[in-house]
């Protein structure tokens, strides 16, 4: 299999990877960059566990070809807080019990952080936008409470 070179900004750092041509962004993140926070659930775009931010928008990294991320800006759960140890949504998820087994959590917080970033605070719309992030544990209520709490947080940027 041929290889491709991919240069991207990963969690704020300029990085270059040499990967097989058919590598998915998910595998570049987990295997090449060692960022195992991002999880693989279905590998088919159905569960949301692999969601990362690509140029500021949430995408299922299991469906993204690594080669197509040349020049892109990628943020994973590890980089979500930026300079802070945790993003306000991550903190709210911990404080309000939005995390149980944790498998869905990296995807939930990246999609959720994008919701807050885009000023989407209306609960019904938040629910629709989060519908691709499946959670087997929490029943979602605590996740929505955490989203509401993080949205209320003053000066969280």
């Amino acid at each position, binding site marked *: 299999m041929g290889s491709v070179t991919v240069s991207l900004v990963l969690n704020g750092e300029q990085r270059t990877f040499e990967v097989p041509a058919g590598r*998915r962004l998910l595998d570049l993140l987990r295997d090449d960059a060692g960022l195992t926070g991002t999880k693989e659930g279905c590998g088919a775009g159905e569960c949301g566990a692999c969601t990362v931010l690509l140029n500021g928008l949430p995408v299922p990294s299991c*469906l*993204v070809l690594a080669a*197509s991320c040349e020049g892109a800006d990628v943020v994973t759960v590890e980089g979500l807080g930026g300079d802070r140890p945790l993003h306000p949504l991550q903190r709210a998820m911990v404080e309000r019990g939005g995390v149980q087994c944790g498998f869905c959590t990296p995807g939930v917080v990246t999609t959720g952080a994008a919701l807050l970033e885009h000023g989407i605070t209306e609960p019904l719309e938040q629910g629709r936008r989060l*519908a691709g*992030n499946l959670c087997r544990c929490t029943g979602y209520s605590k996740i929505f409470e955490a989203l509401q709490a993080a949205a209320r947080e003053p000066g969280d940027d």
Partner: protein
Amino acid sequence: MDLAVQRVLRPGSFEEAVRVMAEHPHALPIAGGTDLVVQLRDGRRAADVLVDLSGAGLAFITARNGVVEIGGATTMDAIANSREIRDACPALAAASRLVGAWPIQCRATLGGNLANASPAADTAPPLLVAEASVHLVSADGDRRIQLSELFSGPGETCLRPGELIRSIMIPTQHLQRTVREGFAKVGPRWEQIISVASLAHRFELDADGSIREARVAVGSVAPTPVRARAAEQFLAGKPPTAAVRREAARHLQDDISPIDDVRAPAWYRRVAVSVLLDRALTEAADG
């Protein structure tokens, strides 16, 4: 797991993409990849060479001279957010928000949704109702076809080897007319589903509330997304009363040829698409 492809070519412009496609006749173009990556992974499609269109400048929406033009690699999210598209084809904006869930919408592209040619492609019925055309380009030249001509069967298009979808063009609407337009789909739940039946409608109403012109297109109930011509002809000139709605649903049955599959039996699709038409007509009557 890596996909079984040997090379990914990444043209930096549309012209280069067309050239690269001509040099590699068996290559598959890839935009968002939300359908294609799964198909490659599951072995339902295979290719040694992929041509990545991310750098080909195909993500754009422009409005001029009575036409809204959407670049082939424009995402569902960008379409749903676009003021121009919400004005020219509100049903398309609505459908784009119902393709998968939000992260899929941020990645999936209009050209990809059409080229994949699923009978269930949610963007197709709204574009059929808008009588959209498609600009296709290959090294041999370019052509402009009606969207209805693009689909030739489930998963099949009239795209020639090396041909790319450059853009989709939608005629803008006459603002002085009273138009009711919308899109709805039926599936096991609201989000993240493949439609069991979908319907887009555009009814132009007369002052007395009767339907001057009806355009209806349906998905998942025939080998390709199709216009419902029998229902349209029946509805023209009629008021959307309960009796007319019932009769329209009967005519709609002649427009479709649904099949039984894992997602739903044919009879259910017939009922579901009738309900969608009935709702669209009821809403038109209620204003």
